[in-house]
């Protein structure tokens, strides 16, 4: 099967900045692919390369097996949902959604029907006579989505589409987006810098850092087997232990990561069992976070954080504690 999008050693420079640096990745048809990374890591530039707003400095991009290099945006069967939605203020919602079809020369009646259908799909039936200015942020977001989907693109690009929404609406839209993607079977390429969003929605996540993809894989793999300190730290703030620290506490002599939720703190009568490692440290901070409490422990100069179910133990800052983790919770990393 041909790939929906394929990057072969793609590089995009802006003067001295390597916005995208030698990226090679294949995105499968029908896949929900998330790009995750810190600000300035090249995610948007990657999307713009697919959409055709940028051209690679070197390397090739193909879309459904066809080389796309040099093709302008309007000749690509790819649509984008922009971060600020970029709706046309002088058109009604209906006209906005029908815009792509009008450009293609679809007759008025037919495109109005399609636009209505697309608006139904994003649960905005009956809004077609309004102006974008008369909509809420979440509604505008849906219009932008309908405007892209009505063209039946092969690939839908979404650049932080939920960034401007409040938490509750964002969670609702996450579900709806995921549902739509399943239902339509379109390839989604989704940019975000919210790791929770990427992990919960995507089939596969690519972690960007300084223009490079440092790791790509299913969410569980990214989360549980980070290949580098950067990934361990960026995705879910894993603890990173140096080879010395790891070895001193029974682990392998390598950089290892340990998830905060895998650490437990021993209380008086509990004992260390055979399949566990343990260490002693001093609590330097306790952060109450609702359902969980995050405890920061300093042990031999290494800072570790542990998340514990709230109020499960009586702990105090400055207290010295023994903490344990299962041997198989340790994940060896390839790179520092």
């Amino acid at each position: 099967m041909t790939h929906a999008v394929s990057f072969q050693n793609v590089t995009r420079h802006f003067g001295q900045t390597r916005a995208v640096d030698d990226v090679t990745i294949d995105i499968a048809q029908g896949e929900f692919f998330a790009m995750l990374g810190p600000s300035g890591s090249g995610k948007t530039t990657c999307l713009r390369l697919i959409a055709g707003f940028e051209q690679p400095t070197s390397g090739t991009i193909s879309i459904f097996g066809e080389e796309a290099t040099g093709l302008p945006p309007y000749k690509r069967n790819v649509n984008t949902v922009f971060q600020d939605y970029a709706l046309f203020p002088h058109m009604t919602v209906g006209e906005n959604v029908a815009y792509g079809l009008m450009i293609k020369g679809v007759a008025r009646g037919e495109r109005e029907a399609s636009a209505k259908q697309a608006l139904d799909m994003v649960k905005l039936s009956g809004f077609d006579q309004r102006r974008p200015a008369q909509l809420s942020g979440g509604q505008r977001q849906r219009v932008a989505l309908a405007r892209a989907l009505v063209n039946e693109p092969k690939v839908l690009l979404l650049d932080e589409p939920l960034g401007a929404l409040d938490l509750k609406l964002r969670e609702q839209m996450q579900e709806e987006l995921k549902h739509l993607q399943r239902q339509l079977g379109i390839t989604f390429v989704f940019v975000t810098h919210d790791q929770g969003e990427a992990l919960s929605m995507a089939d596969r996540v690519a972690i960007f850092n300084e223009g490079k993809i440092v790791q790509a894989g299913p969410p569980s793999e990214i989360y549980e087997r980070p290949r580098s300190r950067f990934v361990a730290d960026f995705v879910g703030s894993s603890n990173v232990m140096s080879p010395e620290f790891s070895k001193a506490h029974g682990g392998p002599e390598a950089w290892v990561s340990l998830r905060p939720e895998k650490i437990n703190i021993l209380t008086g009568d509990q004992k260390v069992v055979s399949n566990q490692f343990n260490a002693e440290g001093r609590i330097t901070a306790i952060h109450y976070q609702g359902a969980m409490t995050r405890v920061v422990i300093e042990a031999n100069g290494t800072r570790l954080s542990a998340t514990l179910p709230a109020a499960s133990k009586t702990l105090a800052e400055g207290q010295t504690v023994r903490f344990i983790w299962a041997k198989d919770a340790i994940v060896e990393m390839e790179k520092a």
Partner: protein
Amino acid sequence: MRSDAGWGLKLGAAAGLLFLHLPLLLIFLYAFTTEEKSFQFPPPGLTIKWFVTAWFERPDIWGPLYLSIKVAAIATVLALIFGTLAAAALSRAKFYGKDSLSLLFILPIALPGIITGIALRSAFDIMNLPFSTWTIVLGHATFCIVVVYNNVLARFRRINSYMVEASMDLGADGFQTFRYVVLPQIASALLAGGMLAFALSFDEVIVTTFTAGQQSTLPIWMLQELIRPRQRPVTNVVAIIVIAVTFIPILCAYYLTREGEHTGGGGK
């Protein structure tokens, strides 16, 4: 609504208005006087015969009127094209010295007309360009472009670049994007700018004096008429026409841009 202005201010404003508009009223009044050599007050009698005279017996009005309309129309079209292009280029580009360049575009309207006139005249001399309709048009285009440029630039700032990209993303090429996304959003600014430009060109005297040679536009014809009095009220009749032709577009432009401000604000 309670007015905060004191009596002094109100009186000042009234005096100012009177000072500005009394001469205009006099122009209207003397278009109807029966005395044709000098303007005596009050007019000895009132008549509408000068309108008839101007229309039927003064063919010398038609040439300048035609020239003025032609020059204003061409200068406006040129201004619409080049003013829009300049505004588009400057609103998109980011480069060092952009603000200074923008200032250079606006300079012709700040410069005294006499300087623009002399500069153009010597430029035409150097290029050995004979005076023609086109030299007048060029002279007028200098300030007409500025008017359009200013109006359109303000509007371009509101169209963000994402909107253009969104249009291209949805399959529209550059021309379609301009036609369906950019043009509708700058249309009222273009209309307003164009009307202002037309009005400015139609009653321009100073730059025209330097770039017209032997030709007369309507304002220059009026100036000549005042020097040798013959059927003086006819000049007033023409003045009323000029007032109508310049004032109506300016009024329209004012309302158009005001309305644009409202819808633009609502879009945010």
